[in-house]
């Protein structure tokens, strides 16, 4: 059942990714309209899959790399759909959906392991911690995509080359404000995620901060984004500098997620999580 739901969701997201890529090449709004509808359907199926998993596991399906990637991808699509409804920036989909697709494919490629779950993971705090962190991360994906688009567009305007992206991308002001907006919302989510993580650790492990490498790297990520936000709000950074900085921040974030989750970390790593579960 779960597998079928996930496969349908994956199929729909892949289909809409193809549509979004066709849209940016052909610039025909018909492609966008269909891709958007299909992505919405895919999101619904993915949501059903996650709900099903939640009831099957008795806790949020975020405790293995497989399920976490799927959850992250769900967050990215959800945040994108929100931005589409709020700002109607059609071309954003062509940048964001490929990432969501890749994450979903990696997730399905990782073999699933049967495990029983210790009561420590059956906590509402886990949902709050992981949920807020990943919504924040998904918003930072938007920040990152907008920054890339900004740099491409700015390059075209500055060098007066007007390449193929020139007509396809929106104005610099639009891209900068998407970058700003997603940063403004992503940061509080990340902050909440870290606070709830500390509370969860205090409640589950007896101490709120254990110098776990992932915790340290998360703090570094948080600080990097804090600096970016500060420069934007207080110093008046915008445009190119802000775009470059948000790309650097996103690289730190990726490092934290991948390296931290996979082998550096103590109890945050999935290997150990599974050890915790078995």
């Amino acid at each position: 059942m779960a597998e079928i739901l996930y496969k349908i969701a994956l199929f729909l997201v892949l289909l809409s990714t193809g549509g979004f890529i066709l849209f940016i090449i052909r610039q025909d709004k018909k492609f966008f309209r269909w891709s958007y509808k299909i992505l919405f359907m895919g999101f619904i199926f993915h949501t059903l899959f996650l709900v099903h998993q939640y009831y099957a596991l008795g806790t949020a399906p975020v405790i293995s790399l497989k399920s976490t990637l799927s959850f992250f991808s769900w967050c990215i699509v959800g945040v994108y759909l929100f931005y589409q409804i709020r700002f109607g920036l059609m071309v954003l989909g062509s940048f964001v959906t490929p990432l969501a697709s890749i994450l979903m494919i990696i997730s399905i490629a990782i073999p699933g392991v049967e495990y029983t779950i210790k009561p420590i993971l059956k906590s509402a705090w886990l949902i709050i911690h992981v949920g807020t962190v990943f919504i924040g991360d998904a918003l930072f994906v938007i920040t990152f995509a907008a920054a890339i688009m900004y740099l491409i567009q700015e390059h075209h305007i500055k060098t007066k080359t007007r390449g193929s992206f020139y007509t396809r991308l929106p104005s610099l002001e639009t891209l900068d404000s998407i970058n700003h907006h997603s940063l403004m919302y992503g940061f509080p989510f990340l902050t909440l995620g870290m606070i709830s993580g500390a509370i969860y650790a205090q409640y589950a492990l007896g101490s709120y901060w254990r110098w776990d490498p992932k915790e340290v790297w998360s703090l570094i990520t948080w600080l990097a984004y804090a600096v970016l936000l500060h420069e934007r709000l207080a110093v008046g950074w915008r445009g190119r500098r802000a775009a470059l900085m948000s790309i650097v921040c996103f690289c730190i974030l990726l490092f934290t997620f991948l390296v931290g989750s996979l082998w550096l970390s103590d109890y945050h790593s999935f290997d150990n999580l599974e050890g915790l579960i078995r």
Partner: protein
Amino acid sequence: MTVRIVNIGMNHESAPVELRECMANNRESSSLALSCMRESEWIKEGLFLSTCNRVEAIYTTDYPEEARKTILSMLSMLGNISEERFMPNIYIYEDSEALKHVFRVASSLDSMVVGEPQILGQIKEAYHQAAGVEKTTGVILNRLMHRAFHVAKRVKTETGISEAAVSISYAAVELAKKIYYSLEGKKVLLVGAGEMAELAARHLMGNGIESLIVANRSFDKAVQIADLFRGKAVFFEEIETYLLEVDIVVTSTSSMDFVIPYDMVRNSLRKRRNHPLFFIDIAVPRDVDPRVNRLENVYLYDIDDLKKVVNENTAQRKEEAIKAERIVQEEVIRFEKWLKTLDVVPTITALKDKIESIRKSEIEKSLPALGDLTPSQIRAIDSLTESLIGKIMNDPIVVLKGKADGRSRDIYLDVTRKLFSLDKDDKNA
């Protein structure tokens, strides 16, 4: 004999501006032209279009020679010049060539700036004057003009011809829209008050710019321009101050040195909190130090850059123009097909066919309900229905045939075709 559609005119390519000016483009001259066409016994329907780039007389006639003379003498009277003087600058199109020309004009393929949107409005106005006020159009021109509007719409939606900018100020506005989300609420500083600057300002204002500030060496001229756009005139020395609050700067002075040096822009950036600043430098020699383009959030386009944009757009437009010509050709063929139906014979045939097919299908439907009939009874039903439609159709057909050469023929045919809906295949016409 079929009616001829003729188009006599001159445009920006065939005639110099001095000549086009003579045919003054005001309402009186076109109403004069229209009444002249109405009075003429050679001209059945007429339409007169006159803009600053073209003069066109479109009419239908059964007597092409006489009608042409009438129109030429009318043009000569309007412009108050002898026919010999403008004959070399005139083109005369007939039938399918005329249809094609009208469609091309309406879809802005014949304009000086191909794809510019004003021409359609001007044609609509000319048509309104001819059809609504002077009542000089009839079945054919009414349909022709509606088709022309339809063609223009198709060309606009199906080709990219009206998208790309071709003039310098269009190009500047297009670029500004890639920097700013919208030009609404943005401020423009005009440095220098030449004709080009005025043109650019007009364009920017047309795209929603909120306010305009004009700085010029001669303050008088600055005030003049500022008044024109309800802007504000400032001294030349104040440029640095106003650089802090504007978004777009258009420079066009005849100064030999840079009017806006690198340091002036760099120093303003921090105070502007890095808000983007777009320089459009249309002066030769240049007014803005080219190095400012290297500054963050500052974009500088000089006249050569803008020309490059224009050229690229022109090339792109040529491709789209081919598509547009195809649409025009398609519609010309369709219109000619319709014109042919205005001969009485095809209409009568179509009418007979339609009634006959109704008769046949009704008999087929009724026969089973009538039970077992002998062959002679079936024959009786056949001849009854045949003579019934024959009697009903007799009078209309006689009337149509009688009108074959009359002035009102087209109206009768058109009404007949509409009453019996004989033109099923093009409902959208």
